[in-house]
């Protein structure tokens, strides 16, 4: 049962109805049952994996807490002199115990994820090595496994650092791991932000409910009208890229960028809208990434919750570890107070994060290179910024028109850098390797004969002119709405502040537009990130 089905809408209607009928105290149970029903209907065999993660993380968190309590009671009856002598040694012993529990649980869970993602590739490589027929296994990953894995391991690490109190009730914890709107592709939530909202029954609020519905409609528009339509053109052009001219290839790849963004962020909008209808706020995952003025800024706006997860649970623990501290000190000694001494230690750590994100995407060299490509750009930007800071270069006062021009250049340069980065993921999405990326890249700069441009475009792609116009116009709507939001205008609040008949007109137009303009042809209907 995908988000893109009538069954889902019916399912949602029943869940919302039940949720607000049931007494407040028991509302979380409705969500738990709904989440498991949703998961069972989607991916029966994968339920084993989600239960395994829920159980191991729940038990590990309880164990971490009980070791902490033991430690407290152990020190409680000791006198001051004893504490002075022995406290450090015993604190270390208790810490070791907790570290072991944390490490085993994380290894076990990420081990599952790694095996599922990489097993078939590793098995084939091994088969080639010993000269036997490769198995050619194609393991489809359990629905949303990465996302609930990130969410629940984040919780465990928070418990380890005493940032959150571990949940006592395993069923309440199970709901935090499996909450159905965000199960498919995130956003990755934090325990202290999401769990209280899930457990306390929320009151029905008409305005919040309507706002949730509007957000869902916006998500469906992005996914069905833009993403699925852009995807048709992208696949038609890039699978047969030798037949097209340079600019046509460029259009094909633009369609991929559009598809990826509208598919992913559209899905997140639907999830956030569904949660909102139930009175639950999810963490924002996108902040108009294509309005960024640097690649660093772009990554702060794209898949925000994954970036935050990587920052809090990989980047900080890594850079604050004793070993890394020594490395930082070493760099400073060697490079004194220069840019290198500052940038190298943090830069390497950030580069590592991008590599990790690349590897997480899948066992393809293209994804790894995608990580390297972005890492190199971010590093370059950081060196540039730090040099400005150290040399205390202040932004110059410029004429307004010059300033606008500079902003435009920054915007365009960022877009092009991000655009070429997408060649890696686009090639991988069609099963191509590094050579495909290279061929596509070269093809983009192929000579375009203006007189024959788009001459065979429509007949070859099977994409008619009307579809093309719909794609351009709907993208224009998207750009307009995001430009308004970028200016701080809250579109949904604006619509909901209007008279009721205007609100209804908006609903009708939106629903009709989605139904009439959908590019969805009845097959597939999945999201790009659901089996990550």
């Amino acid at each position, binding site marked *: 049962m995908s988000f893109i089905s009538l069954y889902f809408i019916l399912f949602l209607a029943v869940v919302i109805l039940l949720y607000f009928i049931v007494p407040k105290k028991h509302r979380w149970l409705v969500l738990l049952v709904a989440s498991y029903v949703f998961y069972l209907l989607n991916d029966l065999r994968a339920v084993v994996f989600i239960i395994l993660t829920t159980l191991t993380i729940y038990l590990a968190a309880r164990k971490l807490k009980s070791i902490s309590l033991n430690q407290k009671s152990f020190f409680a009856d000791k006198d001051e002199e004893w504490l002075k002598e022995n406290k450090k040694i015993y604190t270390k012993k208790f810490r070791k115990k907790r570290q072991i529990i944390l490490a085993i649980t994380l290894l076990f869970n990420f081990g599952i994820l790694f095996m599922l993602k990489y097993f078939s590739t590793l098995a084939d490589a091994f088969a080639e090595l010993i000269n036997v027929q490769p198995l050619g296994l194609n393991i489809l990953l359990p629905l949303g496994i990465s996302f609930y894995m990130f969410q629940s391991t984040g919780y465990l690490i928070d418990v*380890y*650092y*005493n*940032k959150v109190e571990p949940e006592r009730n395993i069923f309440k914890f199970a709901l935090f791991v499996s909450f159905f709107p965000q199960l498919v592709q995130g956003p990755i939530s934090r325990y202290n932000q999401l769990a209280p909202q899930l457990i306390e029954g929320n009151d029905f609020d008409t305005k919040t409910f309507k706002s949730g519905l509007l957000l869902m409609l916006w998500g469906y528009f992005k996914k069905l009208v833009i993403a699925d339509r852009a995807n048709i053109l992208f696949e038609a052009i890039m699978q047969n890229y030798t037949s097209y001219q340079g600019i046509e290839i460029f259009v094909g790849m633009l369609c991929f960028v559009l598809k990826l963004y509208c598919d992913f962020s559209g899905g997140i909008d639907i999830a956030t809208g569904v949660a909102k209808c139930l009175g639950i706020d999810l963490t924002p995952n996108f902040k108009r990434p294509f309005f960024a003025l640097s690649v660093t800024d772009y990554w*702060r706006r794209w898949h925000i919750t994954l970036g935050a997860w990587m*920052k*809090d649970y990989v*980047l*900080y*623990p890594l*850079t*604050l570890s*004793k070993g890394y*501290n020594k490395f*930082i*000190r070493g760099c*400073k000694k060697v490079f004194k107070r220069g840019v290198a001494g*500052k940038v190298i*230690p*943090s830069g390497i*750590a*950030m580069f590592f994060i991008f590599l990790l994100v690349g590897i997480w995407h899948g066992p393809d060299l293209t994804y790894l290179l995608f990580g390297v490509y972005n890492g190199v750009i971010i590093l370059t930007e*950081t060196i540039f910024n730090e040099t400005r*800071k150290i040399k*205390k270069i202040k932004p110059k006062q410029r004429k307004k028109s010059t300033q606008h021009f500079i902003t435009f250049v920054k915007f365009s340069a960022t877009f092009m850098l991000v655009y070429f980065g997408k060649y890696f993921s686009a090639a991988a999405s069609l099963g191509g390797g590094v050579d495909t990326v290279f061929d596509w890249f070269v093809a983009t700069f192929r000579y375009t004969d203006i007189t024959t441009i788009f001459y065979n475009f429509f007949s070859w792609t099977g994409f008619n002119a009307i579809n093309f116009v719909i794609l351009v116009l709907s993208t224009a709507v998207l750009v307009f709405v995001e430009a308004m939001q970028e200016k701080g205008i809250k579109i949904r609040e604006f619509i909901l502040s209007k008279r009721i008949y205007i609100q209804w007109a908006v609903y009708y137009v939106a629903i009709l537009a989605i139904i009439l303009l959908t590019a969805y042809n009845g097959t597939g209907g999945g999201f790009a990130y659901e089996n990550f």
Partner: protein
Amino acid sequence: MDKLMEILTEARPDLDFEKETRLIDDDILDSFDIITIVGEINDVFDINISVGDLVPENFNSANAIWQVVQKYMNEQ
């Protein structure tokens, strides 16, 4: 406190740390700044700030950061 102010201003000469109280909440400091600042604090004060203390409340203002530094120095 003076030493801390020196570290902070060196990392971000563009900010007035006497006034800022929402350094993290308003995304004024990015992760690169945090790594630089915490690395420098660890070095100068000879402490090891734990990841557990990297929460917004502890880094929203120079005063809050100073509280954390003092906590670690007292523990030693």
